[in-house]
């Protein structure tokens, strides 16, 4: 390891406990990192596209997840390698930013790394490769912009949106009923979208799941679904025209934050305390009643006595509602969250046309539907499915579809999927390469080749001959100068992605290329890895 000596010949110790550390330098470090990055990409490669396979992940507690969502796979993979962790981050940031294409971005990065390795073998300096990639990515992103198409939709004609969401859903296990799920997703997004500002707050869409039933029973509820039931079994199960008091204070004797003691030393004090206690509950319930509430939703628990009083005064109540749900209810019903009983006023009550309890299956499971809210800008997607893993996977798929719909509302540009965009970019980058003098030219060509790997993986996963298919499509694109030809994954019989209605969002694709390039550049720039050699 690195040893340095002072003028008397004594060694400096630069790294603490350096004999326990391993170190990789120079080209070795880059190659090791590339190999690690590639290994991660290889895991995801087979999950790409509509015919992609799933991964089964067994968590540390033995829980099983089955998914083909790139971000989820990587997140749960228990990765230890630093570079592999970078790839995980990459997928996650795509998930945060775009929500879809999390697998594609990793496959892309893996392909870039693979190409970079070849360039390194040729003796090209990693920095030059990185720079070449940078230029190429700029070319690709610009080209994407050029080939992108605007497409028109509005609240009444959301068919194009549904088509795009279907592309996203077709790669998931839920593709059996992608049409209905896509419609649900689009309707949900349109319900909460602010079309003026072209913005969608996805927090307003709650995704709730319950095992049982079929996937076909999945529904969109214009309102809120709370996995709770009425606090007293004999409260009414259905309330029309509800005025909802949303409370964050418990129906319990007050607990001041400061530490205190109430000393009881005489009988009188005992008596007064007892009286006061009863009064508390009475007042609490009275206050709710006074402002005209017909339903109380509370974040905290109820004392038995308070519970009965509520029941007695015919004031249905729900307890232990989570903070997020509470907020959603407040948004949906136009109410305000009230932290103290004293602050309850009639204006702060939320309004809902219908609140009802619904029970499921043979076990005592009930849920509370809050519908026809004053402000319908909060919706719930309620997923049913055969088993827990199915529900979880459906949740993830719906999330992806929601993100896609949101992205389209933000930016109406689309590019064609099925690898068509990648192939078009690859052609553009390849053509641009010749214009750059210098070593970068090779890196740019390598980039073009890496772009090909996405359609290649698609073809491979669909059981087609990857090289044959890709070259055929590529030549078709070049010959006819039309960037709509992609891989025919579903065996429909045409390469024209316009006919197949396979769209992806422009920003999603651009982001994929940019993020992948960034990470690859970062990995290429590492030339020294020092790690504890415990294994």
């Amino acid at each position, binding site marked *: 390891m690195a040893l340095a000596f002072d003028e008397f010949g004594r060694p400096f110790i630069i790294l603490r406990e350096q004999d326990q550390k391993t170190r990789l330098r120079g080209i070795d470090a880059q190659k090791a990192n590339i190999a690690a990055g590639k290994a991660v990409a290889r895991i995801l490669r087979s999950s790409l596209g509509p015919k992609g396979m799933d991964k089964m992940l067994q968590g540390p507690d033995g829980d*099983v997840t089955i998914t083909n969502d790139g971000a989820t796979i990587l997140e749960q993979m228990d990765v230890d390698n630093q570079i592999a962790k970078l790839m995980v981050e990459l997928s996650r940031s795509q998930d945060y930013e775009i929500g879809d294409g999390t697998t594609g971005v990793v496959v892309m990065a893996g392909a870039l790394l693979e190409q970079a390795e070849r360039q390194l073998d040729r003796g090209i300096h990693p920095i030059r490769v990185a720079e070449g990639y940078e230029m190429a990515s700029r070319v690709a992103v610009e080209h994407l912009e050029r080939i992108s198409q605007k497409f028109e939709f509005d609240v009444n004609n959301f068919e194009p949106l549904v088509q795009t969401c279907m592309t996203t859903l077709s790669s998931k296990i839920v593709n059996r009923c992608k049409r209905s799920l896509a419609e649900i997703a689009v309707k949900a997004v349109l319900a909460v979208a602010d079309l003026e500002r072209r913005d969608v707050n996805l927090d307003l869409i709650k995704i709730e799941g319950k095992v049982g039933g079929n996937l076909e029973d999945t529904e969109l509820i214009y309102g809120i679904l709370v996995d709770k039931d009425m606090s007293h079994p004999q409260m009414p199960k259905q309330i029309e025209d509800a005025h909802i008091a949303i409370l964050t204070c418990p129906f319990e004797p007050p607990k001041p934050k400061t530490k205190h003691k109430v000393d009881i030393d005489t009988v009188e004090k005992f008596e007064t305390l007892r009286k006061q206690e009863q009064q508390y509950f009475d007042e609490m319930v009275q206050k709710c009643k006074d402002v005209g509430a017909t339903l109380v939703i509370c974040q905290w628990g109820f004392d038995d006595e308070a519970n009965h009083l509520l029941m*007695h005064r015919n004031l249905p109540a729900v307890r232990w509602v989570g903070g997020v749900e509470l907020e959603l209810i407040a948004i949906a019903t136009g109410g305000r969250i009230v932290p103290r009983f004293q602050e309850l006023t009639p204006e702060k009550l939320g309004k809902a046309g219908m609140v009802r309890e619904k029970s499921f299956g043979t076990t005592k499971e009930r849920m509370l539907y809050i519908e026809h809210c004053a402000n319908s800008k909060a919706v719930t997607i309620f997923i049913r499915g055969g088993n827990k893993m199915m529900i979880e996977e459906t949740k993830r798929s719906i999330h992806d579809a929601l993100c896609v719909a949101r992205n389209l509302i933000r930016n109406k540009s689309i590019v064609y999927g099925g690898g068509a965009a990648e192939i078009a970019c690859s052609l553009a980058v390849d053509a641009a390469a010749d214009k750059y003098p210098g070593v970068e030219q090779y890196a740019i060509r390598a980039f073009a080749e890496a772009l090909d790997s996405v359609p290649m993986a698609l073809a491979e996963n669909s059981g087609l001959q990857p090289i044959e298919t890709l070259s055929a499509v590529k030549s078709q694109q070049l010959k006819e100068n039309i960037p709509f030809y992609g891989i025919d994954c579903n065996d429909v019989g045409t390469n024209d992605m316009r006919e197949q209605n396979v769209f992806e969002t422009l920003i999603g694709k651009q982001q994929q290329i940019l993020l992948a390039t960034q990470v690859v550049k970062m990995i290429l720039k590492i030339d020294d890895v020092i790690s504890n050699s415990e294994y």
Partner: protein
Amino acid sequence: MAPPPTDLVDQLRHEIDEEAPLPAIVLPPASGSLSNSAASVVNTVEEEEGDNETDEEASDDDSDKGPTFIRSLGAWSKPLHFTPPPTLPEPATPRFGVTEMLQKKRIGSEIEIKNHPTETQGSPKIYFVHFYYSTTSLDTSSSPFQRRISDLGDLRHRAALSRLPILSMPIDKIFKDDASEEKGERARMASFIGAMAVADLVKSTLGPKGMDKILQSTGRGHSVTVTNDGATILKSLHIDNPAAKVLVDISKVQDDEVGDGTTSVVVLAGELLREAEKLVTSKIHPMTIIAGYRMAAECARDALLKRVIDNKENAEKFRSDLMKIAMTTLCSKILSQDKEHFAEMAVDAVFRLKGSTNLEAIQIIKKPGGSLRDSFLDEGFILDKKIGIGQPKRIENAKILVANTAMDTDKVKIYGARVRVDSMTKVAQIEGAEKEKMKDKVNKILAHGINCFVNRQLIYNFPEELFADAGVLAIEHADFEGIERLGLVTGGEIASTFDNPESVKLGHCKLIEEIMIGEDKLIHFSGVEMGQACSIVLRGASHHVLDEAERSLHDALCVLSQTVNDSRVLLGGGWPEMVMAKEVDELARKTAGKKSHAIEAFSRALVAIPTTIADNAGLDSAELVAQLRAEHHTEGCNAGIDVISGAVGDMEERGIYEAFKVKQAVLLSATEAAEMILRVDEIITCAPRRREDRM
């Protein structure tokens, strides 16, 4: 004199390689998910590194012992072993086509990930295959024993490929310690086998002549359960194989959702996977199989929908339908001897619910003693409690207050309150005040004009005495469900405050009395106002019998309550499967392309259910199923397997009916689960969470 760093590193590494014993590969990652499953299942592939000869000897010893019994599983384990050819089967020079090249490259890189330095030395490996097969399974002939071996041949071949020297950089492994990854064929094999093993485990319990299983818990007391309820069996298994967990999960959901068919769903999913495995070995891509299965499931469902019988309009007929369904459900259970009796009970109970699916309202009380036939449904309500001493044992025209309030020491609930006194007299005073408070409370309760008081919480001696003085029957510590049911039955509200007696709704019943069942005294409320809840008293020889009887009855109640809501019914006895199989077969003939193989396989899987039912009854399944198939060739046939007489018979005449909802749920969730497992091409297992408290 700074030495060239890389050389030093290399040198160091060499030293490490030579001196330090390599980290013994105890559990190769590839088999991690299965091999540490002591209780679960199935088939483990272990690779052992190191000295060839000694290992071989050891393995010889192993195989000499023959099958060993694994108690936790109740199954036999038999090690097989293989020795690979001493030479590498593939030359190092590539002579593959493009796809094979890709494959090879991929395998090579698997090794990179695992980074076992010795992998490159090319020493032969020995494979142990532990194949556990359930002794209870009658269907050993179809156990994929032979096939498994050929799979392993393939595996071995691939593994040998992977031992080619790899000329790339050593990289740090990607996963954390103990985390493991299985890919492609191996992953698929692991999940297929896991799922099939689970299906085989419960297979023998299917049908009216299915056998039971004894489950012994590993917890304290080693309590024993005897059951043939699929969900109960699977719930109690400790399973490590992820695919097997999927099956356990669907069975659980089936139980929650419709209550019955918990075994069928697992068996069907297992059969679907077994068929899928055959297709995969004949090189049909899983995605094609899934597409075929989907079409088939859709078609099967339509076939059922075409043939459903709906008697919702005709109340008389509907009731007889329900009776038949209940009898069909019960005939596979321990209650089959007295199925008419129990079916009657279940139907009555469900009709009392008036369309609600809240089975909590039906209370099942188990009292050992007597025989199963002595069980009865009580119109009123029975509370498993005793009447306090000195209180009336019989009350007519009872007014009941159902309460949930503290009757022990009614604490001051204001936070931080405590008693601090400076003399004994004051203690006495406060004690007096407390008593006074309780007395007040009791008085308030009495002010309701009641003669029966039922509380969820404890009632201490003092208030009990007060109640006794007032001639009020006080029942303490009825559990929460008991209270809720009592509320439902008597129509009273559950009260916690007693300040306004005029507005509290009291419960009413004609008569409260103490009754004896066996040796226990219970409180019986009869002549109740609202008949929503009711009690079923089960009598039987032992706790195990009672437990099983309760489960069976619960299944029947679940199915009935679901059928009340969805009144469509089907014939039973393998009839629906044959109807579906016939339609699916027809679809297969019409479908072009590879999918048709999968569709055909689906129909075979469907037929496996009547086959299993017949097998379990000790009948000639091949003969019967063939006969059945021939019968079903004619349109509108009602033929099914009549297990009792052991022949094919008209199911409508025999009165064997099943609920459509159950069959549909079985079909759909089994297909869904099979699809899910088929789609998996890689299993990544995280390291088990370390437990701190373990030794």
